[in-house]
């Protein structure tokens, strides 16, 4: 039964793999610098590693937004987010898995009457704004570093090509790790309460219950990468702006860095240790960050080759996603709890309707009077029926 409930999370994981892996390897595969097979293998391995090793940080914050306390609720919330992502992708509207899950959780909060922690919501929404901005800043800085490097070090064009290929694989691996670490919260975050208590012993290392859950989510993402991301990878990168292989490295690295910053507990602890405020560990949308990075590069080059129409549709998608997911989640929760009678939160224990039993005192029986004329009418009717 648990596996059935997890299926919606796995579906969401599959959607995430199909879409967001393209943010990491899309430009490399699209420009034919890296073959899809190579990209898919590396992305799958590192997404799973990132999810299992470093996935807890962002999950914790998502849990604070709305701790979905029943498996039925988790199933519905993840399903609403997954359907939103799937359909928006189907209609070619850019979509963020992080926004979809946050919208769906808020839908759950509304449905069960649980208050939404505005402080946590503010923290998450602020990273939706900060993510792309940080992506753009990182991309601009990396562009200058790269520019300086190639100006100082003269490398043969073909050697440069080989280095870029190799770097794309390295950066892609880092990006996949960060994607797994940051976005596993979207996929499995709502199921954390259903994680088993037991440890899974692999001999060299042990996985606790939550890590086992993340491993499963990571595998779902990997399947998404292998089965559906090729098409997205082939088209990504050139949609918003035509990217060169050098720019591809910059955007992917900027994206990976932003995802890493928002999911690394160690980095956040390091910030605290040197007297700086902690970094909010929040699931950030890799789609948004990569758009920010590409925009940063585009603006740096004068902004003339940016596809502004596409940018407008991306921005519209950003606004629409949480609302659609929230509304869908609310409606789905209503059906799940009232039609299928599955509890969606620990508060909502659905009572089965019992037949009403009226206790009658034996003394009252004597007082019941059967009206004479009723029985007479019945007899008359019976006679009439027989005659006909």
């Amino acid at each position, binding site marked *: 039964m648990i596996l059935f409930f997890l299926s919606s999370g796995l579906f969401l994981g599959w959607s995430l793999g199909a879409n967001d892996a393209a943010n990491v390897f899309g430009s490399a595969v699209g*420009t034919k610098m890296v073959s899809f097979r190579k990209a898919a293998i590396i992305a799958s391995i590192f997404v799973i590693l990132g999810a299992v090793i470093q996935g807890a940080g962002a999950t914790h914050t998502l849990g604070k937004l709305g701790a979905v306390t029943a498996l039925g609720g988790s199933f519905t919330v993840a399903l609403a987010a997954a359907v939103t992502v799937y359909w928006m992708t189907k209609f070619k509207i850019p979509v963020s898995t992080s926004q979809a899950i946050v919208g769906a959780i808020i839908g759950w909060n509304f449905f069960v009457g649980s208050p939404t922690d505005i402080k946590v919501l503010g923290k998450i929404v602020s990273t939706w704004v900060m993510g792309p901005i940080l992506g753009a800043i990182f991309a601009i800085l990396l562009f200058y570093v790269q*520019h300086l490097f190639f100006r100082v070090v003269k490398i*043969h*064009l*073909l*050697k440069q*090509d*080989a280095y870029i290929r190799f770097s794309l694989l390295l950066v892609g691996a880092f990006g996949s790790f960060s994607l797994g670490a940051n976005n596993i919260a979207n996929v499995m975050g709502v199921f954390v309460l259903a994680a088993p208590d037991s440890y899974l012993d692999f001999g060299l290392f042990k996985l606790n219950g939550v890590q086992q859950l993340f491993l499963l989510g990571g595998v779902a993402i990997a399947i998404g990468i292998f089965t559906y991301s090729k098409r997205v990878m082939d088209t990504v990168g050139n949609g918003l702006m035509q990217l060169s*292989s*050098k720019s591809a490295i910059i955007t992917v690295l900027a994206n990976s860095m932003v995802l890493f910053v928002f999911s690394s507990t160690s980095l956040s602890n390091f910030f605290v240790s040197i007297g700086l405020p902690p970094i909010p560990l929040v699931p950030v949308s890799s789609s948004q960050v990569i758009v920010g990075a590409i925009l940063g590069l585009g603006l740096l080059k004068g902004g003339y080759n940016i596809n502004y129409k596409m940018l407008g549709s991306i921005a519209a998608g950003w606004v629409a996603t949480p609302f659609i997911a929230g509304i869908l989640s609310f409606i789905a929760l209503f059906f799940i709890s009232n039609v299928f009678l599955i509890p969606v939160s620990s508060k909502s224990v659905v009572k089965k309707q019992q037949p009403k039993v009226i206790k009658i005192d034996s003394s009252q029986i004597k007082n019941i009077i059967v009206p004479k004329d009723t029985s007479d009418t019945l007899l008359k009717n019976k006679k009439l029926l027989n005659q006909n």
Partner: protein
Amino acid sequence: MFFKKTKSTIRDIDEFLDTVDQGILVFKEGVKSYLNEDDESFQKNLENLYKLEAKADKKVLRVQNEFFEHSLIPQYSADVVKLLDSLDDIIDTAKENLYQYDVEIPFIPKKLKDDFLKLLDVSCSAAEAAIPAVRSFFNNPSGVKDNEHRVYFYEKETDGLAADLKRKIFKETKHLKLSQKIHLRYFTLHIEQISDKAEYSARILSALAIKTKD
């Protein structure tokens, strides 16, 4: 894995460029020896040019295969292949032209010998300037401009010299028959062609340099 393939392709490109460069020198020597009526040297140069042209063809084909097979610099591979093809065209044209001297044995009056030599020098200079420009594209794309302007300069010079020579052929060599004049004009065009081909390579190179500029 990445670098092994790369090294062999770089070596092949370098060898191809060397071959084209040598081919231009041999063509120049071949025409000079024809003008100097040194038949032995002419035949030797012609034979050499045949070998170099065959070698260049083989090399450029190998480089093209390596580019497409291993999808090297995929965004620009088609342009790079086109560039190398255009360089191969220079040596092809040189071979074809020198062969025409051997077959048609044009009569070049002594009076026009210096003009032909000058035209030959300038036209071949355009082709010679194209080689370092292409080398610099691979090693330091920002340096392409420093070399390619020489190609345009020599090509323009060649056009001027060729026009003067043609005028001279038709106006000042009254002792020649019209058929001889036309024949000489034809060989002027042959020499001129070398710089035209070099100019075409330079144009492809300019476009590539802009495309690869980030």
